[in-house]
């Protein structure tokens, strides 16, 4: 018989970009991580075309600049919200389709919870193109929390 502990949260994936919005996302994640003593995995995704890329879509130097910005932002989030707390933390920068990469990473580490932000698009936009958060909510094998 399953106990309540089976529903605990051991690993959290937090998907952040470089906006200020990500501070709120990480704050929510840390609050939950502290409550459950969970591992926190902070990930950012450098977006690449899904099908094929041309030189206009991916530049070697630009990718390095993006990676540097994400790394600096992740470090500032860790310093602000996780430094001094006795919590295991990992930070990674991935490349590709953001929703696919978030889902893949969460599956790979056996995450119990994905926390991410969401942009408020209109109905037509969502109908035509969907969004990263909706895609993650629809396809995740674990719980997903959209921080607002």
């Amino acid at each position: 018989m399953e106990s309540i502990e089976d529903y605990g949260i051991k690993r959290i994936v937090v998907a952040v970009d470089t906006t200020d919005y990500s501070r709120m996302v990480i704050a929510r994640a840390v609050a939950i991580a502290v409550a459950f003593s969970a591992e926190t995995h902070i990930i950012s995704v450098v977006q690449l075309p899904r099908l094929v890329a041309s030189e206009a879509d991916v530049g070697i130097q630009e990718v390095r600049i993006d990676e540097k910005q994400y790394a600096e932002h992740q470090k500032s989030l860790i310093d602000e919200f996780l430094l001094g707390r006795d919590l295991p933390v990992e930070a990674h920068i991935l490349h590709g389709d953001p929703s696919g990469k978030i889902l893949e990473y969460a599956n790979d580490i056996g995450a119990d919870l994905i926390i991410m932000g969401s942009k408020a698009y209109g109905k037509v936009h969502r109908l035509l193109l969907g969004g990263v958060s909706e895609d993650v909510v629809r396809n995740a094998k674990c719980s997903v929390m959209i921080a607002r």
Partner: protein
Amino acid sequence: MAVDLYSTALIALVVVITGILSIRLRISSSILEVGAGVILGSFMGVQIEPWLDFLATYGGLMLTFLAGAEVDLYLLRKSAKPSFTIGTMAFIAPLIGEMIFLSVFTDWTLFARLAASLALTTTSVAVVYAVLLEYELIDLKASRLIIAATFVNDILTLIGINLISPSFNLFTVAFLLIIAFMILALPKILDYLIESYGKRAIELELRFIFAAMLGVSFIADVGKLHAVFGAFVLGLVFANCIHSYDDLLPKTRSVTFSLLSPAFFVRAGLLISLPAVAQNIMLIIGLLAAKMIAKFAGTYYFNKKWIPEAPIFSTMLLSTGLTVGTIVATLGRDLGFLDQIQFSVAVTVVILSAIIPTLIAKRFVPRKA
């Protein structure tokens, strides 16, 4: 001459829309721009105006320059033997394969066959780089070797375009002397310009790059070497020093990809005839198959030898092509060697070669150790 504002406004609008769609749908912007050009030309009566010719020519030169500037010479030196062997085979095998295929199945002229075959020898650095990034393989030794081989393939294709109407004169010698001078002087000139006049809104360093690129392309052109070859060689020379300046390459790319490159790809689309594509669908499939089979025959053995963890993956990535292939096909068209039907066929195969081998490669992604 009065500018046709209908065409101008429509193309400008379409470039914005394709940009948005490429980001939202996460599909290559260049492919969408070619598609937009096809639609504008086939269904909306848009013609190629002189201003578009100018921007597209400038765009083709800048794209070729950037292809040269992105070459990592340190990486090439570090893996010289395998990358030169694989890159050379990735160039020669499809050149021979496509020439044989076109000789057997078409009555195209020798130079039409040569121009189309050269366009199909290329490997897309951007496609290869993006796939390696996507699967987080970019830091592997094998990945660096694949990228280096891709650089070699591009270099040989750009040298190979001189096989089309080979000729030389005194300006050829002048071109070689200027390049030798640039190799020695360019880092110092750039240092001086940036220290004395750089970091201003007028972007003097960018103006210098454009002037140098157009000047060298002009000398290459009158030296019977083709302007794009000159742009590529100058890009290679720049590759040695441009990375010392953090913002120079991104700025050059911004100007190129916001204005010039869309013009190049939209014009390529306007030159494509949809009926020609529809009527030659078997030829298109045959040319694509010939490219992939020839790349496989030429590189698989060496990929297995030097990249044993991912021979099929590497071979498929080396079968991709897009920007340089389109540039070479456009050169063939502009020189009059490819007619509209032949150009339409060649560019369609180039675009398909960006998609099909990539999708196959993704089925053979190696596991990270």
